[in-house]
């Protein structure tokens, strides 16, 4: 391994490149939800310089089977190439992506776009999970929310909390289908993951 002094000597010229890469990547949006960027969604994890001096853009998959991941990789590669930045795209599994990484600004953009943003995983796991009477408590972590115990998902159009889930799975794996019982509009909910 290089001495700390040697590392600094190498890292300094790359710092500018990395900053530029972050800037360039800020323009890359999610292929399915074009109002939010990969960084805002927490998919873009890092831009670093590998031992061979090449820039590495680190992304993490959302759902294991999300078909957008291939497109995301292509989009990242294309924008880097267009800007004349040589880079590798590295996919990293751990730590696993969670919707808790979606920024506050992105949550607001999702809402404005008509998608109810996800609740916090930590709280939604604790709130609203209960089995039927008599279920061993150790198994409650897998049980479905009971009516009335489910976390409220406010309608992104009228803001009413009077909404109901119509399907666990929506147009993509990351979303569920909801309907507002006040304004009657159907809407997507980005599921806590």
């Amino acid at each position, binding site marked *: 391994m290089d001495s700390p002094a040697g590392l600094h000597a190498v890292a300094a010229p790359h710092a500018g490149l990395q900053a530029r890469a972050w800037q360039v990547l800020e323009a890359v949006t999610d292929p399915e939800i074009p109002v939010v960027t990969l960084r805002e969604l927490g998919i873009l994890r890092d831009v670093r310089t590998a031992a061979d001096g090449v820039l590495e853009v680190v992304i993490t*998959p959302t*759902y*294991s*089977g*999300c*078909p957008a991941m291939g497109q995301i990789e292509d989009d990242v590669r294309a924008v880097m190439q267009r800007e004349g930045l040589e880079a590798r795209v590295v996919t990293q*599994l*751990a*730590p*696993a*992506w*969670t919707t808790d990484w979606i920024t506050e600004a992105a949550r607001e953009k999702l809402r404005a776009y008509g998608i109810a943003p996800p609740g916090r995983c930590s709280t939604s796991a604790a709130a609203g999970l209960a*089995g*039927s009477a*008599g*279920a*061993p408590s*150790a*198994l409650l972590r*897998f*049980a*479905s929310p009971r009516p009335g115990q489910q976390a409220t998902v406010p309608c992104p159009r009228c803001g009413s909390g009077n909404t109901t889930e*119509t*399907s*666990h*799975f*929506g*147009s*993509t*794996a990351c979303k569920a*289908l909801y309907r507002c019982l006040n304004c009657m509009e159907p809407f997507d909910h980005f*599921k806590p*993951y």
Partner: protein
Amino acid sequence: MNSAAVSPADYLLLLADNALILGQRNAEWCGHGPILEEDIAMANISLDLVGQARLLYQHAAALRNDGSTEDTLAYFRNEPEFGNLTLVELPHQTALAGTARGDRDYAVTIARNFLYSAFMALLWERLQQSTDETLAAIAVKSLKETRYHLRHSRDWLVRLGDGTAESAQRMQAALNHLMPYTQEFWAVHPAEAAAAASGLGVDPRLLQADWEALVADGVAEAQLQLPPASGFVPTGKRGVHSEHMGFLLAEMQSVARAHPQGQW
């Protein structure tokens, strides 16, 4: 096969084959779902399963370091080389000859997804502590997905079981048909024994009591009878499959084999 002949990759292949084959089976509903929302749900569940299989095959290929890839493992292995549970390869009908045709029964689909995802939720939860960092990372992701699969199938189990006389009768028949196949969960394969010993994997028998409680809880809420898991213990894990497996593989593998190295 004795334990000296198994490698960590063999354990990963057991997990991967289950995910791939059930993903392939569930995907048969794509465009044929009983209602639009369920068509979409089953396609999404299949995508998750095939995605999990891909991550596991990629990792197994890396460990094998013998030139295999996720594609060679999925498309160019033959039936006896697949170690999936017999449960996941069965068609969406109650007892049916391999060459016969019949309407798919959504009750069978739901019963299988319920029995399997209850098992996998417990297994992924434990595998988060695998000594293999990549498998642990795959487990963290897969558990998030499997929770939704379990929730989905359990809700439909209750809706159909506690539904009309017709839906309850079909849900019960599906459970009666599939329950004996779950015995294979607990029939320890040498690769599972070796993986449990090394910390890579888990002895499935450790999950049995929790699985039985999870299943009994769902079946009771669905107002159904819990059928016994008895009789012949299936042998899919050991590569000895049902008559349905060959047909499934033929459909899944034929394009890749007709056009090896094909790109599009």
